[in-house]
């Protein structure tokens, strides 16, 4: 696991103990984590896809909101390194409405995990948990706030799929759709700007508050053509149909007409631009169905990269910090 040590020349600063968001991580630490991901990706190509790196560690997945895809990706990442995995489905009716976050955690923490992977519908819940346990916490999505491993695997996918721009200098990322409610968008903005890229956010005003454009390296536009023009990667966000009922959007037809990422609009992008989507997709709503299957689409690669990137995260937090 030599790749887990920072590359020569990187500052020796220690990464944060938890992965709640990417605020405390430097670009060097992120690239070191990507280097580790390269090693992990290589492991996943072997006949026996397992290393003993995390033998003796226990990883608990604590999902207060269902997400089979994300949970399975983390569990695969833990088991591929020989960690024990305990899964707690805390969503729906299994946690009483009145129970405090602290009480729920204390019950589970009696089983002594070394690290918890937490998904929660409320922003900040993983941060709250760090106050009540000695275990490391990895945020697997908290409300609208952050989904750092998704952003890491998105950026890692770009780094491994767009040769010549692995340093992210001069890269333009367009994120299109329901930005206001998207933890994926927030984490990608935080990460890609940290790595040196510029991010263009695009959506109707109801889903794209002006305040999100106040960050350095970020621009807002309400015209998808403007967002896509010359972009190196275009990320479409899942559109929740509740947004129509909630009075935030007119008809689906109008949204499709004005904001869908499709082949015609991708002609304005960089010729080698990648099409990304954090999944699950609404085909022919936020993204044109045929475009999702186009060679420019890296949607499947994003899912596949989830495992090595999450392996690197678990390894870095559990072993890299000891």
């Amino acid at each position, binding site marked *: 696991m030599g790749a887990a040590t920072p590359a020569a020349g990187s500052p020796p600063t220690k990464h944060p103990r938890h992965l709640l968001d990417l605020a405390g991580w430097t670009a060097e630490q992120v690239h070191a984590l990507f280097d580790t991901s390269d090693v992990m990706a290589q492991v996943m190509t072997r006949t026996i896809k397992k290393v003993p790196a995390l033998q003796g560690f226990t990883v608990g997945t604590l999902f207060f909101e269902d997400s089979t895809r994300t949970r399975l990706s983390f569990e695969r990442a833990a088991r591929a390194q020989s960690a024990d995995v305990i899964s707690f489905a805390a969503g729906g009716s299994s946690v009483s409405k009145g129970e*405090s976050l602290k009480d729920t955690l204390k019950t589970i923490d009696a089983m002594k995990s070394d690290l918890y992977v937490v998904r929660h*519908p409320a922003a900040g*819940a993983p941060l*709250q948990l760090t106050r009540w346990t000695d275990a490391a916490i990895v945020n697997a999505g908290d409300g*609208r706030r952050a989904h750092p491993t998704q952003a890491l695997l998105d950026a890692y996918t770009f780094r491994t799929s767009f040769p010549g721009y692995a340093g992210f200098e001069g890269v333009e990322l367009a994120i299109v759709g329901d930005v206001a409610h998207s933890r994926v968008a*927030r984490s990608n903005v935080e990460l890609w700007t940290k790595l040196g890229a510029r991010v263009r956010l695009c959506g109707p005003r109801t889903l794209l508050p002006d305040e999100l454009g106040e960050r350095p390296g970020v621009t807002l536009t309400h015209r998808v053509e403007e967002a896509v023009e010359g972009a190196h990667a275009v990320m479409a966000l899942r559109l929740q149909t509740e947004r129509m009922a909630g009075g935030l959007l007119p008809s689906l037809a109008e949204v499709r007409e004005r904001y869908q990422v499709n082949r015609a609009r991708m002609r304005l992008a960089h010729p080698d631009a990648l099409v990304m989507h954090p999944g699950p997709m609404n085909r022919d709503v936020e993204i044109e169905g045929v475009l999702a299957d186009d060679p420019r689409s890296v949607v499947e690669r994003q899912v596949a990269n989830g495992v090595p990137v999450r392996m690197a995260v678990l390894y870095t937090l559990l072993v890299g910090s000891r």
Partner: protein
Amino acid sequence: MTRPANGSEAMSEPHHGGDRPTPRTVLRGARLIDARGDHGVHDLWLAGGSVEGVDLGGDAELEIDARGLLATPAFLDPHVHLRTPGQEEKEDLASGLAAAAAGGFGTVVSMANTDPVVDDPAIVADLVAQAAALGRARLRPAAALSLGLKGERLADYAALQAAGAVMITDDGIPVVDSHLQRRACEYVRELGLVIQTHSEDPSLRQGGVMHEGAVSHELGLPGNPAEAESIMIFRDCEVARMTGARVHIAHVSSERGMRVVEWFKAQGAPVTCEVTPHHLTLTDEAWRAFDPVIKVAPPLRTADDVAYLRDAVRRGVVDCLGSDHAPHTRAEKDRDALRAPFGLPNIEVAFPLLYTDLVLAGDLDLARLLELLQGGVARVMGWPEPTLAAGAPADVVLLDLDTEAAVDPAGFLSKAKFSPWEGRALRGWPSMTLVAGRVAFDRAHA
């Protein structure tokens, strides 16, 4: 002692503190300050539940060394949640009124959003009787504007007033139905009671848990815009003007909301307003720590709003302070940001906090701060101005303006032993509070 409601018969109150005789008491060597001015250092004599006079002779049954302390009328609070009846796990009368006395308050107005709701004269009478027997701060209950706080039918205001209710409010739940608000104001006007409003438009605030702005968008927490407050304040002031009823706008939190109040006041509308200690000292930036202790309604706003509120306090636009002391259990506040309840306990730190952050910081005169806690509240409620004059109620607080001490929630008398100001070094701690001539709080023996 009774405080007559404006234009009505003085209500009867069981003898405060029970049937024990009130000792003749002297507060030796205190600096006396009240609405009439700074009277310098004197001995203040109390007898029979009233102020007897200064520098008198004779024997004292109780001698209190008040040298180095400031003696001033005990504070009044038009806005506390004592959670009784029905939510005594959060606070009960004994803990809440002891906490109030510890904060220097001699009289508090309790809100009606309890379980059952205070919409029944028997509940009001019971609260008054129970509180009097405790001998802590005096309790003056508010009663509900609508039956069950459902926003549908008017409560029996005259009967509630006769039982001891001093304010009409659905606080905690905005009155959505403008017609109901109008009829309540019309009906209550002739009774001389003040109507207090929790002015937020629920359809605009939606599921907002914090102020909507740059911080909420960054943190991804649902926002509650200042306009949800200002729009409803406009309606409530307009109905006050329309009906002539006295309307008190609770906990104004935003510049937009305060500007609306100012606009109506300039036209002579019968409106008053309060601000809370937390809206004067904390901002939405506090959410970065994701501790739902600071989840309050209306929410903590921006630094610009705080500056505007402070300025409104200085300019006299703000009539009084209201603590909105709103205790919850620690477990409730250990829920996530979406599910934790709104409200924080603050009555024990309100004065030291504002003395330190506003007066010592040079933002406000001590006299103005005291007015916001004494005469300002009395005028809003229609009560006599509290003073230390002979014959006034012997409700007195002794303040230690010199000793610095850190906020220690574990030592709170409130059941809610947590605070956003935990660890803050503050000055201005009340040393002792006397109510009706009896010691209701003594820090040396707390």
